[in-house]
Every structure is written in structure tokens, then in C-alpha cells.
């Protein structure tokens, strides 16, 4: 009898330790297991493990990207867009992320709400789109320092040392090619860098603000009604479908006020939407 009790106790201890081992997997282990499940075609298991790894606080674009893939394979386009967008924020120049996001978007129902900006505008704003918040902030800082340095150069423009350096460096200066003198050339360079600084500062500021406010959301429900007010008794203005991006402008007791292209706005219930 005693031997049996000991056996039971040992078995229970073993099970508990195994369970602990199961639950105490590191994010990297979860990530690897999810990848294996994905490759085996078990997308539900892959989603589960990816989600757990993401819930542990890991901010890896590869993890978010894979999670988007797993949702895509399950046909959940809303969550696929959500995670691809999150991956894109961290790795905006990753071709795979961009490609999969484009593919997912092409399958969405609300195609008319996908604000297709003109090509020239996309090209012009590529620097904004293809940089992370940290990169935008860093570039802004560097440009700001450069503006100050150019300002110092401008102040000491008559010094012998600076004149000597200027003669060597200014061969490539467009201002000099235009026939501007040293002061004008430095002033032009300063103005251009200042302009760039302003652009990047605006880009960085808008990104930081968007991150802080989490003002972009993705519709997760296959179809979600957008009401005229934060109440189910309010009239339905229009309907949106999974994967559609919205701007979140306000929040009230489980309701979010959203805006969409074309001056569309209304209130949507929170479970139907996730913020990026």
C-alpha cells in the first residue's frame, strides 16, 4: 500500500514537472515549435504558439510576420493583416512582409476602402513608409545635428581653417556649381538640410504619436456594422469587412469611433477591431 502511494506521488510529481516544463517554454522555443507546426500544415497549432510567444512581450518582426502567415493560411484575413501590419512597423523594408500584406489586401472585400494613393505620391513618401519610428527619429536627430554643424560652419565661414576645408569639400556642392559664394552655398545647404529635418521630424512625430495613441485599427470580424453612435440601438451607417484599416479617433466604453477614407466615420464595437 505504501509502495503504491509512493508510486502515485512520484507520478504526480513527474506530471507536474512536465507541465511546468511545458508552460515554461521560452519564446524562442515556442517560435521554433510554431514554425515546425506551420511547416507540417498544422496552422492552428502554429497560431497558438506564435500568439504565446508574442504575448510574452517579444517584438520580433519575424514572429509577427509568421503569425500573419499562419492566420492567412487559416483564412483569417483580418488577423493576417493585423500581424503583417505590426511586422511592417518593425521591418518596413522587408519584401516578404510587404508582399504578403499586399496579397492579403488584394483578397479583402472592402477594396474600395483601400486608399490607393497615386504612384508618384507613394514614391515620394517611400522614405516615410519604409522607415521605422526609431529610424525616423534617429535620422531627424542626425539631420538636426547636421543643421547645427552647418550653422557653426556658417558662423565661422571666414576662418582660415574652415575656408580651407570648404575649398576641398565644396567641389560637389550644387551651390558652388550654381555660382553661389561660400556664405550663400552654406546657407543653401543649411536650408535644404533644415527642410529635410522638418520632413523627418514630422514623420517621426506622426509615427510616435500613432504608436502612442495606437490610432490605427484593423477590422477582425468577417463583417462589422458601423453605428452612428456608441450604442447598439444607434442606426447602422455602413458595414466593413475583415482586414480593413481604420483610424481610431475616440474610445468610449467598449466602443471605438473610427474614420475611413471617403469621410466615413462611425462607432464600432471593440471586439470587432484590433489596434495595430
Amino acid at each position, binding site marked *: 500500500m505504501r509502495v503504491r502511494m509512493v508510486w502515485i506521488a512520484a507520478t504526480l510529481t513527474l506530471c507536474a514537472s512536465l507541465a511546468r516544463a511545458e508552460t515554461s517554454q521560452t519564446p524562442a522555443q515556442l*517560435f521554433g515549435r510554431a514554425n515546425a507546426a506551420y511547416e507540417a*500544415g498544422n496552422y492552428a497549432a502554429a497560431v497558438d504558439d506564435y500568439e504565446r510567444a508574442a504575448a510574452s512581450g*517579444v517584438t520580433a518582426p519575424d514572429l509577427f510576420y509568421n503569425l500573419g*502567415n499562419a492566420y*492567412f493560411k487559416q483564412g483569417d484575413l483580418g488577423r493576417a493583416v493585423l500581424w503583417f501590419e505590426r511586422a511592417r512597423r518593425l521591418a518596413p523594408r522587408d519584401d*516578404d512582409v510587404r508582399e504578403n500584406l499586399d496579397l492579403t489586401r488584394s483578397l479583402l472585400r472592402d477594396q474600395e476602402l483601400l486608399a490607393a494613393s497615386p504612384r508618384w505620391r507613394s514614391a515620394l513618401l517611400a522614405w516615410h513608409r519604409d522607415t521605422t519610428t526609431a529610424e525616423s527619429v534617429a535620422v531627424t*536627430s542626425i539631420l538636426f545635428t547636421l543643421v547645427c554643424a552647418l550653422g*557653426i560652419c556658417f558662423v565661422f565661414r571666414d576662418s582660415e581653417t574652415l575656408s580651407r576645408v570648404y575649398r576641398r569639400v565644396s567641389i560637389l556642392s550644387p551651390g558652388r556649381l550654381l555660382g553661389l559664394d561660400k556664405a550663400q552655398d552654406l546657407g543653401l545647404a543649411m536650408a535644404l538640410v533644415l527642410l529635410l529635418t522638418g520632413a523627418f521630424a514630422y514623420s517621426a512625430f506622426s509615427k*510616435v504619436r500613432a504608436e502612442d495613441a495606437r490610432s490605427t485599427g484593423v477590422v477582425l470580424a468577417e463583417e462589422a456594422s458601423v453605428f452612428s453612435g456608441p450604442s447598439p440601438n444607434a442606426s447602422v451607417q455602413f458595414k466593413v469587412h475583415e482586414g480593413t484599416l481604420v483610424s481610431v479617433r475616440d474610445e468610449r466604453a467598449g466602443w471605438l469611433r473610427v474614420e475611413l477614407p471617403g469621410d466615413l466615420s462611425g462607432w464600432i464595437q471593440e471586439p470587432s477591431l484590433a489596434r495595430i
Partner: protein
Amino acid sequence: MRVRACFMAALMLLSAPAWLRAEDVAVRATIEPTTVEVGGQALLTIVVEGKFRRGGQPELPPLADFDVFESGTSQSFQFVNGQAHSSLQYNYILSPRKEGNFRIDPIRYTLDDKVFTANAVTLSVVAGSAGVIPPAGGTTTPNRSGGHGTTPSSDESIFVASSVDRDTVYVNQQVTWSLGYYTDGRVELLRSPNYSPPSAEGFWVEDLPPQSKYYRNLHGRQYLVSEIKRGYFPTAPGTYRIGEARVDIVLDTMNRRNAFDDFFSRRGGFGEPRTLTTDPVEIVVKPLPTRGKPAEFSGIVAGNLTVSIVSDKQVVQVGEPINVSVEINGVGNMGTIAPPKLAELPQFKAYESGSSSDSFKKDYVVSGRRKFDYVMVPQVEGTFTIPGVRVAYFDPELKLYQTAQSADVHVEVKPGTQEDGRKVIYAGGGDDFEVINRDVRFIHPVPAHLTVASGHFYQSKLFLAAHALPLLALGLSVMVERKRRRLRSDIGFARASRAMREAEKKLAQADRAFRAGNAEDGFGRVHAAVVGYFADRANAPTAGLTSDDIETYLRASGAGDDTVASVRDIMAACDAARYAVGAASAERGLQIAARSRDVIASLERGRR
């Protein structure tokens, strides 16, 4: 009827390669066999291959010594990396009228205003037994199995007569129309007869080679009959008419030759033109019976129809395309068969990728083969069965609807191993390629380092504060440069700025002189330091600056009496030491120098 004719024409156009583009085209011609007997058959094949958009029509060179019959076309095309590779084949049956070696000149083929030429081919024609069936027992009977139409009753030396094998048929059932040219050899022709086929509105027409010849005894005369045949396929129910055929001949009234010389090989001379015509033939076309018509019946009228389906692969990976071909063979007009529908399988995406057709005319009966190609792309792994294709048709001989069915095709689909999981293949049917399998790119491996979310560097106050440094540096540089400029341009400011520094320097020299025991020199340096300081301050020349001047300057500057008194004492001590022998002591000098420092420092503090 007109609508049906338009539909048939549209089908023809659809089956024609109108989507191709003239580019890198090769045209070649072959003939098989290269030696035939007179009246025999040689198959002339013209193959057009390459990348082109719109098919043309071969222009055959003059073939006066041959009877030429079209024997169908076939086409195939595929897309490789977005390029259309097409193959068009035109078949002609040549039936030589006389022996000899013949060279068929290069055949011209026009595509998008460009002319391509095929190679020339040669054909040897030898005399043979084919052609005329010798009379047996003095009487020859027509070599045909009865029919309907004109019964030859003329006692002319030369005449034509037409007949059909049946005058009541179903829609799309073949009617074989025959034209017999009768001659008893008593008349001579100056040139080959010119034959105009009958009009045949409402029919799909096929020439039926070869021309046959036989003897027939009519009204006690022996006639040589040259007979050609055509197949007529009515396109809609109703009563239709195969019009009159014309044969224009020119009789040689001056000369007579052997009655049994080849009818189509006469040449030259003047004579009596004559037109021989046949009587029109009425054909009653019955609609297809409604009773027993299968739901999937799509209008095929044929006999002995078979259907088969084959795939080029039985084991594939997800996303790997499978080429599936459906082939339909049967007796009848197979050129108008529409593509059968493959069963819709959600695990596959299916696309039509081309079609081809061949027609055969054995024993004056039209039969054919129609092949439809599909590309099927499996979307998921597993073992699947592509159900066999069912084709319902009406057999006009049996007067029954029949159904032909192919066997099933089994395909095993394995998981894809491609890195990006995406495969692009190209399907025919249009100018644009189509991405068939759209899938997300493959997952990424686990990165070497996984970072846990934490605050960003740009959110720290230190980072924000650091941006003040470049601004401070800029401000400082502005101040420095401003001072430098003033020092350069304002002598008074420059002297005043360095007044204390200069005085300190001289006082230090005085200290060294006092410590070295050279009191007189030391006092002289103290004096120079004090006078120089005030001269720099007042931007006045050092020479000639007296104690009174300094006092005046001090009073004007608002200095106190103590300061004025101290300066006066310093100046007096210096003068005494310099001019009174033995009055200078080193200790006293150090005290005076220290006092001078204090006074100058006090004045500098007051100035600020």
C-alpha cells in the same frame, strides 16, 4: 438558321488562334508519301511554329495537276514565361492527275503583314492501277451504293449528275453529296473543266477526297465517270437545298481523241464552250429528338464517340501544375465540339490552356479528334480523384442519345517545398499571363535573438536633452565669432579686453624681479603694468600717461576714493623706488605688486 450559322462561325473563330502575335515564326512544309500513283493521295502538311498573335492562311502555289482537298487543321499552344509558343498545322490532300515529278513551290504564309515562306517539296507520281476500274464483263456498274438525287438519264456524250447518300438527316449528320462527270469518249475537251461547287447555305461543308473514277453503262453506252464528293453537315432543322453545281467545259469540235483520256488533263485550243449543271438537291433536316435527351447534352451529333482523359503527372506538390488533356474521338463533325467541363474541385484551380483538332476522311466519312488541354493547380495536399469526363451525344445512325465517359484520374498531391510557397505559371487563352497560385511567402526562421519589448531610446529624457548640445554649440560659436569680429574692428574694445591680462603678465614679471632682488626693475614693471592697464582701458597712449590722467579716468569711471587713493599710492611708491636711490626694497615691491593686483581686480569687477 442564320443564328446557328453565326454560332458555328464564332466557334470557328474561337478555335482559331486569333490571340497570337507575329514574331519569330517558322513555316515548313512536308509531304507524305513522296511517291504516289496517279489518283492516289499525298498528305501535304504545313506547320507554322513560333510566337505570333493571329494566324493567317497558307497560300498554296498553283497546283494545276492536282486535285486539292483541305483535310483539317490542328493547333496547339502553350505559354512559357509569358511567351506564347504556338503551332498551327494545315493539312491538305493532294490527288495527282498525271504521272511525273512535281515540285511544289514554297508556300507563302502571311502573318500580321509579314510574309513567311515554307520550303519547297517534291512529289513523284507514277502510273498505277488506281483511277479507273476496268470494266468487268463488258458492263460496268456505278461504284456507289445507291443514293438520292439526279438519276443519269441523258444520252449525251458528256454530262454531269449529282446525288446524295440520304435526303433526310438529323442536325449535324453528314450528307454525302456526289458529283459525277460522265463522258463516253466521243467528245474532246480543249482545256480542263472548271468546276464550281454548289451553294450550301445552312451547311458546314467538308471536301471528301479523293476523286474516284469508274465505268458505268448507261443506255447502252460505256461512260467513264469522274466523281468527287463533299460532306454536308446541316446546322439547324428545316428544309435546305444543296444548289446546282456547274462544270464549264470547252469542247474541241475539230479533233477527237481517245474517249477515256484523263478528263481533268486536257489542254489548249479553241472550241465550243458549254456549261454543265446538276439539279439542286433538297435535304430535310430533322431536329434532334427531345425524348431521352440527357441533361448534359451540348449538341454533339456523332457516332462511335469515345472520350479519354489523361494527366501528365500523377504525383505533384502543392502549387505544381498538372496538364490534363481530354480527347474526344468520333465519327461526324467534331470541329464544333465545345470544351467539356471538368468537375469543379475546390482543391484545384483549373484553367483551359489550349485545344487542337484533327479531321479524318476515311471512305468519304468525316471523323475527327478534338483535344482540350487544361492546367490544374492543386491548392492543398492529399490524394484526389479528378472525375472522368462525361460527354453526351446523339448517334444519328442508332437514333439514340448516348453518353461516353472517360476513366477517372487519380492524383497525389504532396506538401509544397518551395521556399516562398508561391508558384507562377502561365495559362493560355489570352495575351496576359495569370498568376494561378497566389499564396503568401514562406515563414521566416527563428531569429538568433528575440528582443522583449521595452521603452524606445527616443522616449528617454536624456535623448531629448542631448539635442540641446548642438544648439548650445551653435549659440556659443555665434558669441565667439561676434567677439572675434569686435576684437578685430574695435581697437579700444580689444585693448580693454586684454588690459587685465597684460597687466597680470607684467605684474608676474615684477614679482619675479622682486624675488630675484632686482627691486628697481620690479617697480618699473609694476609701474608699466598699472599705467598700461589704464592706457588700455582708456584706449590712450601709454607714453605720457600721468597719475593725474589716471585719477581723472578713475573719477570719470565712477571709482571710489579708496581706489583712487590706492592707485595714487602705487604710482607714488613706484616713482619713489625708481628715482630715489635705496628706497626700493623687494618686500615693499611685492606688497605694491599685490596691491596693484587687488586694485585692478576690483576695477574689473566694478566694470562688469
